[in-house]
């Protein structure tokens, strides 16, 4: 113990002693391993949640009401959470915007998920998730939020599931704010929260402009200027596909007010695996160009990285290291493994080759 350590209170010391004793009783496991059997959502555990209700929103979108474990910290509307859900037995992490009121009496939160074609997790959540399932959670994050002092005039430009963070804000916003919502969806039936949005509009709470792209075509920036005459007076938040956001940013830049536009970009979920790529070993601050037929283990060793290794044939798991992000290919059967930032998927470097840019945590 060092002298700079904060002085322990008698209660704290007692608690620590008790915890140490409990750990000695349960070794090699920790008390939490047994407590998880009894109450997986208790305080002091890592963040988890239980799905308590599933509400259909459209034919391909649902809202999941989640009871988070006791360590949950309230979020700011507009933020998203990463959830870890087991799909076909494999834990997958994805980010979804929170759409719930921040002051729910029962402490529940909600996310809204739209099934995207080929989306592993979104389709699972929309079509197969069941009430009662325990999922893993991360704390809310994201800068796509309203400032503490809410501007008097606001414009939301959204498309598809881009409405979800905005709904989070609308549901938690003071009544008197002047809000315009311009929302695009393929057809009237595809509008998530259609009923609630239209109700807000009919009550005069917001001005809602729905754009049904199957019949009306895509929203253009000039059209937006026509639809919202006081565009330049409004602080704008936009969320939707990359193409739309790029166009909006261009327009706001051209009009010399880039600071008045806040955007939230969806992470691209479709990855095309290539052959080889730049492999970065982040802890060793080393990067190498690697062909698609060379193992990450060989590439790392050749670059002087201290690589853990074992059998070099894929059986001993002595070489396992976290893939922080990127795509790798199993050289034995061509299987592709992809990791998004924060995933830290553990891979066997001795049988994996780069199938794109990779970042290895070594």
């Amino acid at each position: 113990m060092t002298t700079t350590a904060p002085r322990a209170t008698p209660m704290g010391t007692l608690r620590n002693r008790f915890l140490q004793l409990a750990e000695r009783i349960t070794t090699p496991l920790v008390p939490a391993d047994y407590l998880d059997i009894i109450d997986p959502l208790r305080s002091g555990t890592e963040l988890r949640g239980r799905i308590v209700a599933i509400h259909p929103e459209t034919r391909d979108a649902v809202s999941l009401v989640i009871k988070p474990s006791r360590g949950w910290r309230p979020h700011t509307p507009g933020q998203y959470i990463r959830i870890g859900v087991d799909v076909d037995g494999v834990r997958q992490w994805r980010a979804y915007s929170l759409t719930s009121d921040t002051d729910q009496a029962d402490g529940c939160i909600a996310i809204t998920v739209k099934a995207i074609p080929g989306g592993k997790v979104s389709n699972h959540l929309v079509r197969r998730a069941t009430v009662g399932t325990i999922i893993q959670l991360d704390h809310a994050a994201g800068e796509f939020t309203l400032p503490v002092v809410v501007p008097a005039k606001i414009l939301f430009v959204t498309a598809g599931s881009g409405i979800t963070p905005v709904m989070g804000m609308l549901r938690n916003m003071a009544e008197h704010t002047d809000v315009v919502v311009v929302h695009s969806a393929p057809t009237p039936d595809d509008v998530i929260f259609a009923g609630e949005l239209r109700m807000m509009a009919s009550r005069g709470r917001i001005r809602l402009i729905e754009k049904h792209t199957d019949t009306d075509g895509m929203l253009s920036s000039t059209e937006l200027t026509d639809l919202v005459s006081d565009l330049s007076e409004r602080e704008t938040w936009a969320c939707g596909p990359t193409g739309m956001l790029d166009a909006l940013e261009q327009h706001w830049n051209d009009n010399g007010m880039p600071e008045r536009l806040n955007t939230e970009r969806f992470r691209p979920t479709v990855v095309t695996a290539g052959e080889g790529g730049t492999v970065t070993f982040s802890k060793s601050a080393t990067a190498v160009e690697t062909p698609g037929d060379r193992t990450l283990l060989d590439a790392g060793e050749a670059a002087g990285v201290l690589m853990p290794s074992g059998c070099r044939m894929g059986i001993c798991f002595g070489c396992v290291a976290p893939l922080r992000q990127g795509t790798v290919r199993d050289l034995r059967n061509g299987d592709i493994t992809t990791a998004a930032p924060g995933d830290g998927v553990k891979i066997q470097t001795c049988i994996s080759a780069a199938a794109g840019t990779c970042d290895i945590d070594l």
Partner: protein
Amino acid sequence: MTTLQRQEKNPIAHLSSGDIESLGRELDAIRQQVLDSRGERDADYIRSVIDFQRKLELGSRAVLLFSLFPPAWLAGTAGLSVAKIVENMEIGHNVMHGQWDWMRDNKIHSTTWEWDNASPSDMWKHSHNEIHHTYTNVVGKDEDLGYGIMRVDEDQRWMLFYLAQPLWNFINACFFQYGIAAYDLKIGKYLKGKTDKEEFRIQAKGVLAKIRRQMTKDYVLHPLLSGPSAVTTLTANMTANLVRNLWTHSVIMCGHFPEGVQTYEKKSIDGETRGEWYLRQMLGSANISGSRLLHFMTGNLSFQIEHHLFPDLPSNRYQEIAPKVQELFERYGLTYVSGPMVKQVGSAWKKVFRLSLPNDALRKATAAVNPMNIVQIVFPSESTEVDVEAA
């Protein structure tokens, strides 16, 4: 490829190198079928086994709080023994093999798992996953062969020390977890001065710390928690550990020791192909036949052959692929060594006894008392030379 055991004929002489490679491709295909169908069912399996094991352990330890009462001692000891066996075999061994890494659940992962055993998981993973599974049955490389204290092959030079190897094996069985820790530490090599002293010191410290934690739990804290039942809980925990040691030792002996299992020379694996590696695993392992309960209690190591072919496939799948693997053995004219537990344990022990004596000692001893041989020794004839050549 040279087999060391005295073979009447080479069991793979009929296979061309092309055969061996196509055998390898067929095994790759079996592996791929399992990978393609691996999913929720498997994940549910391991989670329910872990859940069952933890509840059984908690329940048994709770019952043992009243172990002064003999039925409680019996029930608690039986439950704890089973819990410890399942923890080591179906859960610990298989999780540390990376069989469940694909689930990406940090709590059930080869890099984070620690098991209820004297040998720390890091050290065990190296000596087991890397050394034993890569160099399976290669004499001088695979230290699981005889654990460095026994003579397991005719070509190993006989020494007086081996005369007592049935006793060494029995002692090793009783204290198996410490035996494993000792050879994971490579104590033998250290005593011969073949290991780095500093590295050994660090590793030994880790092992001792682990043993201390394990002993404190089983032999101090849980007995103390039992209050008036302290002594009986202590004996219960000792019994459970002994039962686990004897059981795991027996199962593991069945994996590579029974008659019919091949051993290999170091130089025979130089430049080994994937197909040849598979073939060595096929001939170097033996299964145990029996009920589903037996398979579960052995951690599916009763499917030792399937496990050695595919050490990273989920253990619940070995039973499923066993018929396909067995069919391959038949088609390629190889012997699938398998038998009931009692027979396999007996066979392994027989080998331990046989090899405790110098080669042919038994035959020579029998021969010495055979009247015909005595006649020949006393009255050497021309036929003696023929006999010698035939021998």
